[in-house]
């Protein structure tokens, strides 16, 4: 138990250290660039569009460098691209309006599913002893017992 507590403490310390690290302008460029696609029709991420001679990606990359410097956060940068290159330029749903549902629904569904499951397990746990008693009553019936054994024997042989 003591060792486990020490482990927990070490994990906590580590997670605090995990927070260390800050964004610079270059990483903002990389991050925002990873959320944009080249609009030449190749369907690739803007920064990995890999065909030389593409007329679109160099201009988009220039615009990205400029907007990263002028806009204060990534969402504003992405909105700029939505307005100037069309909504499909950004490969992430927006965090406002109808597109917000893309972000909200998954965690809600997951939380709901886990919640329902935990409730079901607790309900089963409460019902458990009563059901076990009922099952024991059935189990002592010799005729049923014989049938069960036969069914088990016959179904175990594939």
């Amino acid at each position, binding site marked *: 138990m003591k060792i486990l507590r020490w482990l927990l403490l070490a994990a906590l310390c580590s997670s605090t250290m995990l927070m260390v690290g800050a*964004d610079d302008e270059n*990483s903002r460029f990389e991050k925002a660039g990873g*959320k944009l696609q080249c609009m030449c029709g190749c369907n690739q991420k803007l920064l990995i569009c890999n065909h030389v001679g593409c007329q679109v990606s160099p201009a988009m990359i220039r615009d990205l460098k400029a907007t990263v410097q002028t806009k204060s956060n990534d969402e504003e940068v992405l909105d700029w691209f939505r307005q100037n290159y069309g*909504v499909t330029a*950004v490969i*992430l749903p927006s965090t406002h309006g109808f*597109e917000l549902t*893309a972000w909200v629904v998954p965690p809600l*569904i997951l939380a709901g599913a886990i919640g329902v499951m935990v409730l079901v397990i607790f309900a089963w746990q409460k019902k458990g002893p009563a059901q076990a008693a009922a099952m024991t009553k059935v189990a002592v019936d010799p005729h049923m017992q014989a049938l069960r054994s036969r069914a088990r024997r016959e179904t175990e042989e594939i």
Partner: protein
Amino acid sequence: MPLLGSFCLLFSLALALYCFGAGVLSLLRRTPATARLGETSRRAGLACFIALCGAGFALVYAALTNDFSVDYIHAHTNRALPLAYKISALWSGQEGSLLFWSLLLACYGFVLRLRHHVDRRLYAHASVILAGIQVFFLLVVNISANPFGVLDHMPRDGNGLNPLLQYPEMVIHPPMLYLGYVGLSVPFAFALGALIMKYPGEKWIHITRRWTMVAWLFLTCGVFLGAHWAYSVLGWGGYWAWDPVENASLLPWLTCTAFLHSVMMQEKRGMMKMWNVWLIFVTFLLTILGDFLTRSGIVASVHAFAQSNIGAWFIWMMGLTLIVCFFFFFKNQDHLRSENQLESLVSRESSFMFNNVLLLAAAFFVLWGTLFPVITEWVKGHKISVGIPFFNYICLPIGLALLLLTGVGPLLAWRRTSWASVQKNFLVPAVLAVLVLVGLLAIGVRATDFAHTMALLAAPLSMLVGGTILLEFIRGGRVLQPKLQTNMFSAMVHLTHRNTRRYGGYIAHLGVALVVIGLAGAAFDQENEQPLRVGEKMQIGKYTLVSQDETQDDNANHTSYSAALEVQKGGKKIGNLYPEIRLFKASEQPDHIVAIRSNIKEDLYVIYAGRSDDNVPVIKAFIKPMVSWLWVGVLLVIAGTLVALVPNAAQLKSLVPVPVTVPATASASAFQKQMQPVGAGK
């Protein structure tokens, strides 16, 4: 040949219809006459496979003999195409791939019908359901997507195969994927058949499990080959782009994985019967949905077949399947009542339930992200793009939670586990995991963004899984070693052979842990791109690439440009790389031949990106850490699944049999102890 192919297709449709109709009639009444009718139905199913082989042969023969009067052959092959790719034309287009799907379905049906002696009544039900599915696909192929349509003239040459498909893995990847997709129809047929006939006991689950594992294995191989092909050919440095068609293959894989786990609860405790039946139904429906997404043109994808009007067929099929499933479920749901219920939150059963919820949540999220552009179009009138970052944000945390369960699950006993036991078993793997985390922090890895945070969490969790599995093998080996009087390794091999399913599963889990480490490496990618004249150098990480030569080659199929690069590390030559780009003449499309130098730590990934405005080769290089762990991990998953498919060895016989009379109260506790995993609670 086109005439023969068309005839074979029509004939196989007639046979499938007979197999279905006669099969239904024979199942409705049980008389000697209907039994004979059932046998004719079975034989019609067998003959359907032979007829479809004829159709498949006719199409391949047309490809091999350059019969460009067949529209499909004209569209997907040309004279200069190598032999293997001409054969692969069978599945490289819409119509051919549907014929191939039908052929594989008939092949599964053929094997199933030959094995009818295992359980005649259950197999008869499954055969009829498979025939129903067969009828659907043959109707589509005969009416809407006939591959034997002929042109009114004979072109001199064909359009050629898509250059991206002209790669050895592409000859194997689609058949593997299709074997997986189509194979999932078999467990569906058994599940629905067992529900319709209220099959007693769990034998159908035993029968289905093997078929499901085989289909799952093919699907896993198919997904793996697809990812490896994307990495080796597409030249963007990645292996998974969350493309709608890629997602379509992942969806049934996720639900099928959930089924393979939850089915153990039904086998061991008689629980989750309704859940399992629906998992199979949903898995089958997702394979049809995958077909719909790939073939209807509803979502934009580089992998999708050309937009066509056959999407409606698949909507009808999904609707009809849902109605049939719901009808028999509500009619016979009493048959699916659980024999036991979950007794504790801390138990193997609950870990399987959480595992299932997470896998299904992942499947839902992938589906949600895939269909969200379509939903937005319905609601707002315009499509949006949903790409890699969105799927990473919503799916990676789920993946890590699943990894945690993979590590913790084996430590839990069936029915209930004491916290003391969990803590005791958890200690060593947890210490190893924390050490990995601290080690990563010590070498300067920080959670500067989402990808790095996920990578930092993935490594210790993978260690947790690895530690847990290793301990399970060691504990089991220690128990067997003195009995067998052998070394530890042999004891572990024997242990695996005694319970192939359990230890095969552990090997597969170990593979998953390696896959996750490989995926986590992507957070630390580096890249550089520059024009490179002969004699010039470029730097990427610790590597220096020196251009030695550039060449141009030309053949009937394509023109290629390649560069000869010397790879140096620390000023010393360590090898050469030859990235290449091919320009295919028939399709006028480019294709990259990526040059990769791989080791356990990282891949040096170099592509010939093209030529700059002043006609200089442009080289793009990446350093991709830990990628080889990903491929090794998948191979381990495949190996683990193969081990799990091997039957168990005979149990070791004790040298001196000891008859034991156990009082009633003691037997219950002994049973509970028997259900504990090796080492648990000790």
